[in-house]
């Protein structure tokens, strides 16, 4: 198992009332694995998650992207800047 920390923003941050969550996932882990474990560990995020993108080291990542504990991981709800 590895522990991944995921930064939260906007509605995700409000739903969890915190800036980041940590979740344990079996190693090796992909972005897709992270999604599954996040939804299970944090039910308030489950509805929002399918509409979010996962960013890894400031880049949008596909579900097949591999993860390690040193990565900066963020949950990106649909953006609405401008």
């Amino acid at each position, binding site marked *: 198992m590895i522990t991944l920390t995921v*930064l939260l*923003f*906007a*509605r995700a*941050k*409000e739903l969890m009332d915190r800036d980041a969550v940590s979740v344990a996932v079996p190693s090796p882990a992909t972005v897709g694995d992270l999604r599954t474990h996040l939804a299970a560990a944090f039910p308030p995020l489950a509805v929002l998650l399918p*509409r979010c993108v996962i*960013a890894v080291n*400031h*880049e949008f990542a596909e579900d097949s992207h591999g993860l390690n504990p040193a990565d900066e991981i*963020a949950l*990106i*709800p*649909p*953006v*609405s*800047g*401008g």
Partner: protein
Amino acid sequence: MIRLTPDPIDYHALTDAVVRPECGGVVLFLGTVRELTGDVRTVFLDYEAYPPMAEKKLAEIEADARSKWPLGEVAIVHRLGRMHVGEVSVAVAVSCPHRAQAFEAARFLIDRVKELVPIWKKENAPDGQSEWVHG
């Protein structure tokens, strides 16, 4: 020039900063906080960003535009925090040799900013209700 700032955007300085002798066209776009979105009245907006990724995406968008048009100067500034109706949340300024290019580039930049940059806004209505706008 790429910037996220909590302060009011000095879009006058931004406009002056992009004027160049070889560029005959300057286009400035300002996004301002609108009072009505459909039937919903907004009193103020709260903007939040994921700053390091937002800055990276803004720089990529600028580079992408520079590969498409012969841009002189480019400035993209997004303000963060609380803004009331009429305040400027985002400013894009470009200069190009010709006006068609300047219009196309400015439009491209603001469209991509709204599509790709991790910034979010929460609408706050007169009755105290608030909601994150999610795309």
